[in-house]
């Protein structure tokens, strides 16, 4: 049988090497090679999806090769429903992002495409890794390409944004390294065996002190990535400065790494600590949900608004994870997928406008419905999806999170529900400012530059729209996939008890 997971992870590497040999004066060839690579990668992940069995428990398509035997570190990869769906999301969004970069990226195309493909390796690797050490390696691999993408191909204030992004996430992840090593060491100390394998560590009963320490370090890494309030301020800056495709990946995949980490590692490994900190994390999530939306309402910049909406939407993910309730956690996973699709698409929409106007301020936009009807429709569609319109995928995730939360903490769900209004407020405001009323004078001045979406732009958005609609009406296949793993995680968590020494 083919090592499908490894193929998915490392096909981009092959593509990157190929691109390295494409002459510098052939940018179009470079682009197509990159796109073809991402398509092949997407293909591999789809093959996995086709061969995935929702009824089987545990991980599938596993590969296991010793890597650093001294410490029991293994190249161990495999997928369960949660990771597979996120891998497919990653490969899809990467392909779309590469396509979306065809026109906007004209400078250093070769470097850009290589960077992007390396980024894909890291992202897929994080989701596929079943060894904590391997996970960490992939986790960090993601960092540098993103740093370069924002820093080299980003906007005017990119250096500030990129350094902030890098340092902020690095602080979290390096502390997580300490947590990982401490975890493995305690396992070694009590069993005499070195292992970083997820299957060994999950469910192993670690001491309270270690659980608290490691949980906190993991939490920092994941909370910064998600990003949770109050660790979110790198996000608006990074988004505003990133090129469109960078924003798509940042919002679509990178933020998911945090949520995935919580589900895959924080909960099963440290159930006691998870129970201890859950109330605080739930509180932070609810604050993020409301606060992100409130701040989004007054953003004067299209992209910043979408960035803050991410803070709000990702709050649902962390909320759903930490109420330890089946529907809520399924909703959280589903919400991760949705957010990837919808916010990714919204950033593409921002990009479409930015490409024509080089401006994203609402003050200068307006009235696009008349000149760019197709664009207006697309934007409206994703706006509604983001607002959680039933029938589109955004609704399913949010609804499941909230109904699950309600079952265990009605008040929390009730407070979070306010976002239904707040979310609609900023989204409809945004839509009104961009699409409605008469064409602004600024836009009139652009003349023929202001044309409706080009075929390539349509090609990037249509698959996302189709998926958003499809998942909204038929979420069952995805929910079936994540149900098993979620109950596995909850099973681990259910053995945890809140530790006494913290309030």
């Amino acid at each position, binding site marked *: 049988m083919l090592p499908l997971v490894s193929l998915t992870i490392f096909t981009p590497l092959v593509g990157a090497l190929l691109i390295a040999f494409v002459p510098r004066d052939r940018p179009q060839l470079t682009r197509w090679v990159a796109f073809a690579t991402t398509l092949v990668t997407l293909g591999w992940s789809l093959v996995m999806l086709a061969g995935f069995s929702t009824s089987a428990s545990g991980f599938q398509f596993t590969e296991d090769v010793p890597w*650093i*035997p*001294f*410490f029991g570190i293994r190249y161990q990869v495999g997928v369960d429903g949660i990771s597979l769906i996120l891998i497919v999301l990653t490969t899809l969004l990467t392909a779309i992002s590469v396509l979306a970069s065809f026109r906007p990226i004209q400078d*250093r195309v070769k*470097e850009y495409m290589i960077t992007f493909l390396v980024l894909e390796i890291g992202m897929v690797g994080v989701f596929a890794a079943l060894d904590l050490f391997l996970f*960490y*390696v992939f986790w*960090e*691999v993601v*960092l*540098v390409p993103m*740093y*370069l993408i924002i*820093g*080299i191909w980003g906007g005017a204030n*990119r*250096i500030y944004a*990129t*350094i902030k992004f*890098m*340092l902020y996430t*690095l*602080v979290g992840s*390096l*502390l997580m*390294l*300490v947590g990982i*090593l*401490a975890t*493995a*060491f305690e396992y070694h100390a009590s069993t005499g065996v070195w292992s970083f394998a997820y299957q060994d560590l999950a469910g192993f009963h670690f001491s309270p002190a270690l659980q608290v320490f490691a949980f906190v370090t993991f939490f920092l890494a994941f909370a910064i990535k998600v990003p949770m309030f109050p660790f979110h301020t790198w996000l608006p800056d990074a988004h505003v400065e990133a090129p469109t495709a960078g924003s798509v990946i940042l919002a679509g995949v990178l933020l998911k790494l945090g949520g995935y980490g919580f589900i895959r590692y924080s909960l099963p490994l440290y159930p006691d600590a998870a129970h201890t900190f859950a109330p605080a994390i739930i509180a932070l999530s609810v604050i993020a949900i409301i606060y992100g939306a409130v701040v989004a309402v007054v953003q004067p910049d299209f992209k910043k608004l979408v960035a803050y909406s991410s803070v709000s939407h990702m709050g649902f993910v962390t909320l759903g994870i930490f109420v330890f309730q089946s529907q809520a956690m399924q909703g959280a996973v589903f919400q991760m997928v949705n957010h990837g699709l919808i916010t990714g698409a919204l950033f593409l929409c921002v990009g479409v406008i930015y490409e024509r106007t080089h401006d994203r301020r609402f003050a200068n936009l307006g009235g696009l419905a008349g000149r760019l009807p197709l664009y207006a429709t697309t934007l409206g569609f994703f706006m509604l999806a983001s607002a959680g319109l039933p029938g589109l995928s955004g609704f399913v995730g949010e609804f499941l999170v909230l109904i699950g939360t309600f079952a265990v903490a009605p008040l929390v769900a009730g407070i979070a529900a306010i976002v239904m209004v707040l979310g609609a407020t900023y989204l409809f405001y945004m839509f009104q400012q961009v699409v409605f009323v008469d064409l602004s004078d600024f836009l009139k001045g652009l003349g023929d530059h202001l044309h409706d979406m080009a075929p390539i732009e349509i090609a990037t958005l249509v698959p996302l729209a189709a998926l958003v609609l499809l998942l909204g009406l038929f979420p069952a296949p995805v929910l079936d996939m994540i149900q098993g793993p979620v109950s596995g995680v909850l099973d681990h968590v259910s053995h945890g008890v809140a530790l006494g020494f913290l309030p």
Partner: protein
Amino acid sequence: MNAGDVTAILPLAATWGLAFLVILVDVIVPGRDRLASGIATLGALVVMGITAAVATQVPQQAFGGAYVLDQLTVLLDLLFLSIAVLTLLYAPDYLRPRRLPLAEFSATLLFAISGAMLVSAARDLLVLFLGLELLVLPGYLLAGFAKRDGLSTEGAIKYFLLGSFSSAVFLFGLAYVWGVTGTTNVSGVSSALQAVAAGHPLSPGLAMGLAFLMSGVAFKVAAVPFHYWTPDAYQGSPTPVTGYLSVGPKVAAFALILRLFVGALAPVKADWVAAVVILAALTMTLGNLVALTQTNVKRMLAYSSIAHTGYILVGLAAYAGAAPGSEAEARGLQGILIYAVAYTFMNLGAFAVVAALQRRPGVTSDLQTFAGLGRRAPLAGLLMTLFLISLTGIPPTAGFFAKAYVILAAIQAGGIVAWLAVLAVLNAAAAAFYYLRVVVYMYMREAPEAAPPVARGFELQAGLAIAAVATIVIGLFPNSLIAIAEAAAKALL
């Protein structure tokens, strides 16, 4: 001296021989600099081969046990020789345009390396001191190698004065330890101290000895607050020399620490662990903080090397803080070794890129020199990025693995040392700022109009390739390195 002695000292003797050969060549055919340096390079490679060959039968002794060739010696010798090879490969591109004598450089370097090799093999306090002096004296000369350059000589004299001062301090401490224990033999000292360690507090004499030794060694590894010489000496020296200075004497000083503190002073390690912990914390923090605002890349790398000293000291702290005989003890030593190896390649690689940029005389090592490098010389930019990423400690590079190893050791040691690990990673995060600032300049700023083209000689390219490959390979496949380090640590315990 018998036949066994000969094989034991073969690597060292060969290095000496090579140094003399280079001088001879220079004398016989003066002006044939390339020939001399070529001989030196190839010769060093041959010596590496010899070392690897004799490594099959270890441990061996010579001079009545004062000199030992064990796993640790082999590992360190190979590392020192690699440093020699790489430095020799980088040097021509920098020295020749400046009309600095390459043959002399090669010979001096080889002598210094032989000193380092002597340190790594010494099982006698006196030999240790001799090795140390043999290491540093050529180092002073190398620092001032560009003798018409004010900065070079300024760095050299600072290095020399402070270095000699610290040598005296070190020697003073050595005298006391010798006086108290009554022997210069490392194992003799160790067994003599075994009695002392049994519950009694240290005698004042031994305490003075330890304090002076610790200070002397701290100077050699450039630990805060004994680090002052580093930035000036590094900045002033010709760039290939800076590269050498940042790794050669530092790794040799750690070899000294291994032989002296781990070999001889281990029984009283409970008494010096606190000093190491404090030194480690101060060193990495100050090194990183000051590096944050540097605008000269060489000087920045000098401070960064101070910070890396701090990380390596975490390994030592892990060793010292761990219970005797525990696994953590060995882990700490392995951490020191693995970090030293990783650091050698990534740091030399970074300096090689700086040297390459400075091929044309008059080009400074200011950050501005790096502006737009990613466009002007994509490969150089890429490699510099790789080395900087490794220095930051981001996988999949050698720097990451080494850092993880040291941190693991600290965690295994537990207690206060474990918190040192936390401090280390926070420092690493701060360090990312200044390392990545170079990346910012290379990729996110445009080159000035008159930026000179970047050209590299064959040797430099080969050297860069070696450093880059090592940086990646150690990061991805560290197994053999771990095995070697494990064996070396075992030889020490």
